[in-house]
């Protein structure tokens, strides 16, 4: 049996999942190992092509043999078990590798039945094909070919599920028997999870590749660094040793020279002695000669000379003759002083202290409101272990005052210093340290933190269809250099539009040109030497209609503006009025308030909701309209006035105290006001019935602002940011 299962090792465990769909399934077996499998395939093919026929016409005996072979092939328990089971007609064991064709299993199941039915319709093609395979039996492995036989009908057959516990596919029918207790999932799911696992493994491998590559790069870098460090050390040593050698040579020269001089001194002393000795000798000899001569002289001369001679001799012999050698022939032992050489030798290991680093000027846009990034550089020859960065805020106050200096130690040549105050200048200096000590301090550089973001005054935004005027608070105590306004069109929630920037704004307000009927998000940044601040909180501006806030500075004391910013109320109570100061911006006679309309010449439209019985005046006026006069009583204002008295509505359209005689039968509750700079017109409408009420022709050389007043207690509500209704467009 074993011999027949050619090529298959005894513990041949197959990975239980198949990555290919049944149609694509190729024979995964090595060439020679599937003889029996192929036979089964062949049988299956016959079955597939000849569904009518009873598949296995062979004797149950032959089937058993084949089964046994397969069993051994796949190491599926004892040789006899399978056969016996099959003969019983029960289901085969679950541990069937999935690559076996389903048909094969089916065959086994049906085999006995088929066999029982007898040899019916084995098929005309059957014996022939079978013969082919049977002949193949026993031939060399290389001659076997691999056939792929489609198994279309398998899908229609008994459903196949996957038993997770046994990690093998099983037929649904079998689940109830053997796999009752096991976890079972659909084959598709099992397939997917297997694919997932494989993919995961692939990912892991990819990551590993990346890591290794990175590591290799890193190693290369380290290589280079080692070379560099070596070079540096080499240089160091060379210079040191040269120094030492020079010192030694120098010492040698000095000592020799000293020795030579000593010798010279000694010799000179000796020579001196020799000379004096010689002189002594000469004198003695001369005296001797004289004495001898004397002896030959006459007695009288002899006595004279002898007395003189005796004096001389006496003197001479009294003179000490120094016959001691004053000069020692020996030289002292020289102690060789090498202490400084030793010192030099020791300093070979000690590095010099570094030189002062060079602190860089502040890089543009490298600061935030609370931090700056300080950079410096060192001389390349220096070896530095760490740096000490110190800083303190720059103040205008007296320099004698002690200011806190902060210091930090860093290893890199840069440092982000945090926890700083926005829009402030700081002085930085740095020293380098190594084992030999500290460098001198660098020059001091001034860095500046970026400013705090400004705060847009969102309630004071003025806008129209073509532009918006926004103003803001600086957000900083000290002045900044300039501001930038950034705006983006809000198109759709997902799309991020292009951001426009208006730069170099000197003051805290900006008039920005915009497009009609859009929404914009706008924010502001402050700039200083350190860079830009963070963005301010954004505001949204809609370029639909005109939008104006009410100017509280013009508000009569008896008028209040509600929190929404657009409801104007005159309450019953009256506070006593103070005498208005000259140059007062508040209305003092008519109980009025003005709005701040964007200074753009175009068409502006807004509406006012009124009570039918209220006494009100609405219109426009110049900034410098006399506040102690009624609206409409001068040339600087145009307005519509409504009075309700004795159940009658009276309407006036006032300018310079004059009004046309107009009667209106339906009292408007919502008044539309159109200010048209281009055509020099101011029109009023009854919005609810689209009725035109009146139009002023007004020469507007400057900019006017909407104005509202209440002659009696009541309220009116302003609506703006409204697109002009079509009926208004006719005017």
């Amino acid at each position, binding site marked *: 049996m074993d011999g027949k299962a050619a090529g298959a090792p005894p513990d041949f465990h197959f990975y239980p999942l198949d990555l290919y769909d049944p149609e694509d399934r190729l024979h995964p077996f090595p060439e020679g190992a599937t003889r029996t499998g192929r036979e089964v395939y062949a049988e299956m093919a016959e079955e597939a092509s000849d569904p009518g026929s009873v598949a296995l016409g062979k004797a149950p005996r032959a089937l058993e043999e084949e089964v046994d072979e397969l069993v051994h092939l796949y190491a599926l328990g004892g040789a006899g078990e399978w056969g016996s089971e099959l003969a019983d007609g029960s289901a085969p064991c679950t541990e069937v590798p999935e690559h076996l064709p389903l048909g094969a299993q089916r065959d086994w199941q049906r085999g006995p039945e088929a066999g029982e039915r007898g040899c019916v319709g084995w098929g005309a093609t059957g014996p022939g094909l079978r013969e082919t395979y049977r002949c193949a039996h026993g031939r060399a492995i290389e001659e076997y070919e691999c056939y792929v036989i489609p198994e279309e009908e398998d899908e229609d057959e008994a459903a196949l599920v996957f038993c997770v516990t046994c990690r093998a596919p099983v037929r649904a029918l079998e689940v109830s028997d053997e796999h009752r207790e096991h976890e079972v999932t659909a084959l598709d799911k099992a397939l997917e999870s297997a694919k997932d696992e494989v993919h995961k493994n692939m990912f892991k491998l990819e990551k590993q590749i990346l890591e290794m590559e990175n590591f290799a790069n890193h190693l290369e870098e380290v290589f280079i660094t080692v070379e560099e460090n070596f070079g540096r050390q080499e240089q160091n040593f060379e210079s040191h040793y040269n120094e030492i050698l020079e010192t030694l040579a120098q010492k040698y020269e000095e000592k020799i020279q000293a020795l030579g001089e000593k010798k010279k001194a000694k010799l000179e002393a000796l020579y001196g002695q020799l000379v004096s000795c010689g002189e002594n000798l000469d004198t003695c000899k001369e005296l001797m000669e004289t004495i001898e001569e004397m002896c030959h002289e006459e007695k009288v001369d002899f006595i004279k000379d002898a007395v003189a001679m005796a004096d001389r001799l006496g003197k001479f012999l009294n003179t000490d003759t120094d016959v001691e050698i004053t000069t020692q022939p020996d030289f002292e032992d020289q102690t060789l002083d090498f202490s400084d050489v030793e010192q030099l030798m020791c300093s070979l290991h000690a590095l010099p202290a570094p030189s002062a680093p060079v602190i860089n000027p502040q890089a543009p846009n490298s600061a935030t409101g609370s931090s700056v990034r300080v950079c410096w550089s060192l001389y390349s020859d220096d070896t530095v272990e760490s740096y000490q960065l110190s800083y303190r805020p720059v103040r205008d106050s007296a320099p004698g005052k002690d200011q806190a200096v902060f210091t930090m130690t860093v290893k890199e040549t840069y440092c982000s210093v945090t926890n700083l105050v926005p829009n402030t200048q700081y002085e930085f200096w740095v020293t380098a340290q190594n084992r030999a000590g500290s460098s001198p301090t660098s020059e001091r550089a001034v860095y500046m933190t970026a400013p705090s973001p400004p705060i847009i005054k969102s309630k004071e935004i003025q806008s129209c269809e073509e532009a918006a005027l926004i103003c803001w608070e600086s957000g900083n105590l000290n002045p900044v250099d300039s501001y930038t306004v950034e705006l983006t069109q809000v198109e759709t929630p997902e799309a991020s539009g292009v951001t426009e920037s208006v730069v170099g704004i000197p003051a805290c307000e900006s008039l920005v040109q915009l497009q009609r009927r859009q929404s914009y998000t706008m924010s502001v940044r402050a700039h200083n030497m350190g860079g830009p601040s963070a963005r301010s909180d954004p505001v949204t501006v809609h370029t639909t209609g005109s939008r104006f806030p009410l100017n509280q500075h013009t508000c009569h004391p008896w008028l209040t503006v509600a929190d929404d910013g657009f409801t104007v109320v005159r309450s019953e109570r009256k506070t006593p009025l103070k005498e208005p100061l000259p140059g007062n911006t508040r209305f003092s006679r008519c109980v009025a308030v003005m709005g701040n309309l964007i200074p753009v010449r175009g068409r502006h439209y807004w509406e006012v909701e009124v009570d039918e019985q209220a006494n009100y005046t609405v219109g426009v006026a110049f900034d410098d309209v006399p506040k102690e006069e009624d609206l409409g009583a001068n040339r600087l204002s145009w307005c519509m006035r409504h009075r309700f008295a004795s159940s009658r509505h009276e309407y006036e359209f006032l300018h310079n105290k004059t009004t*046309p*005689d107009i009667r*209106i*039968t*339906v009292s408007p509750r919502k008044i539309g006001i159109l200010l048209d700079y281009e055509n020099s017109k101011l029109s009023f409408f009854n919005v609810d*019935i*689209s009725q035109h009420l009146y139009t002023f022709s007004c020469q507007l050389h400057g900019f006017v602002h909407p104005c509202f007043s209440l002659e009696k207690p009541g309220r009116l509500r302003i609506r703006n940011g409204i697109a002009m209704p079509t009926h208004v467009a*006719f005017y």
Partner: protein
Amino acid sequence: MRLIFTNKGRMALKEISSNKCFEGLQKVFEHDSVELSCKMKFGIYLPPKAETEKCPALYWLSGLTCTEQNFISKAGYQQAASEHGLIIIAPDTSPRGCSIKGEDESWDFGTGAGFYVDATEDPWKTNYRMYSYVTEELPRLINANFPVDPQRMSIFGHSMGGHGALICALKNPGKYKSVSAFAPICNPVLCPWGKKAFSGYLGTDQSKWKAYDATHLVKSYPGSQLDILIDQGKDDQFLTDGQLLPDNFIAACTEKKVPVVFRLQEGYDHSYYFIATFITDHIRHHAKYLNA
């Protein structure tokens, strides 16, 4: 009840004159009127836009003693009509040449004083059917012969024509998109002109008069919102003579909440100079509704 037999095809129109004006054409036509049983002329201004598309129609009713000529020559409306693309039709004020006894005796009754009513009294009832002419026959004629959008029609007029415009609008809710008037006779049943004309055309039954009185019609006006613009010269002698009585009309409109803007124009009289001054405002008023 009369039956009106109209030709299915075009009614015979004879062009009397044509002048180019503000890139449009001011024409005068003559036709045989069935309602009035005589030849009638009317002026019609065709703006440049009418060459290519259908335009709305604005009917002007002239006042006492006028013909189709006064408005087209004196009012100076052609520029505004051209700009807004409106066809403006100005019919005559009464049937002409009917040889009715007494038709030429007064300037405020008979010829040139049709009062835009359908007369019920002899000898006027055959010919003096200006109401039907203006509201039925003329629009049909115009719609059939000119590039007019039949759904967009408005009416205005001066003095007696103002009265005519008001009553046509009030008696036909929804037919006219807008109405306006210059110095209209607002309350004819109470003014000398009206009393004279109505008693002549309609007899003594005052209930028949009210059917042609704007002030009365407003009181029972059920229809959709009208937006009425009325200009009145403050120095109009007929105003002081009590012929026009706008206050009554305004009061009635206030009561019924019919929107009216009534402008009393300082220094202006009853003449075409007054009309010419404010005609542009009126045309714009109508254009707002006709071109909407």
